[in-house]
């Protein structure tokens, strides 16, 4: 019984750690895409203006 309970607790702990890591990756991915998107768009606009 105690062994099962321990397994469940460990499973919850590991899955929550994995979930928070995934969340952080997702968050960083969103912000990086936003930044690079703006940077690339500005580069294009600068090219258009120069041409």
């Amino acid at each position: 019984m105690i062994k099962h309970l321990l397994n469940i607790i460990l499973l919850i702990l590991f899955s929550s750690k994995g979930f928070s890591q995934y969340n952080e990756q997702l968050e960083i991915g969103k912000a990086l895409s936003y930044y690079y998107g703006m940077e690339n768009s500005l580069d294009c606009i600068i090219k258009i203006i120069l041409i």
Partner: protein
Amino acid sequence: MINKMNLTIAHKSSVDSMKKVLYTLSKEKYQVLESLTKQIINCDLISNELSKDYLKNFTNDKVKGNHDIYNEFVQILLKYNPKYLNNNTKEFMDDFRTKYSTKNHPKSKGLNYTISFPKSWIVKEGERPNIIINAHDQRNQNISLVLMTKEFMTKRVNLMQ
């Protein structure tokens, strides 16, 4: 040119810091993840009119995040900026602020006031009847702000009677 300079000054250090975090989180998939975030835009699709539209309020809306659509992304960038890691005041002084007004809010009980706090703070509507908002620092969960209105005067009058 000025817009690109503003963007670099405001968020380049956040990008470097985020890359480091991403690398520590997944060393094996780092290259794939980073290349996915670097969007390749076809410059031929951008016309003069589109670029004029894009540059309208660029710094205020897209770099400072003073637009509802872009606010979420700017909040993440600010969260990872090493300059503001333990320095909410610096973030506030660099004009990254969220302005909140209680005007016409059903819980404000007619009291109208405006408050500003650092942009990276997450704002949530209060769940309790007297709590208007609950804002907290993403980097330090111990720092938070609660806006609460309660009719103290009514209670005082009752006590005097």
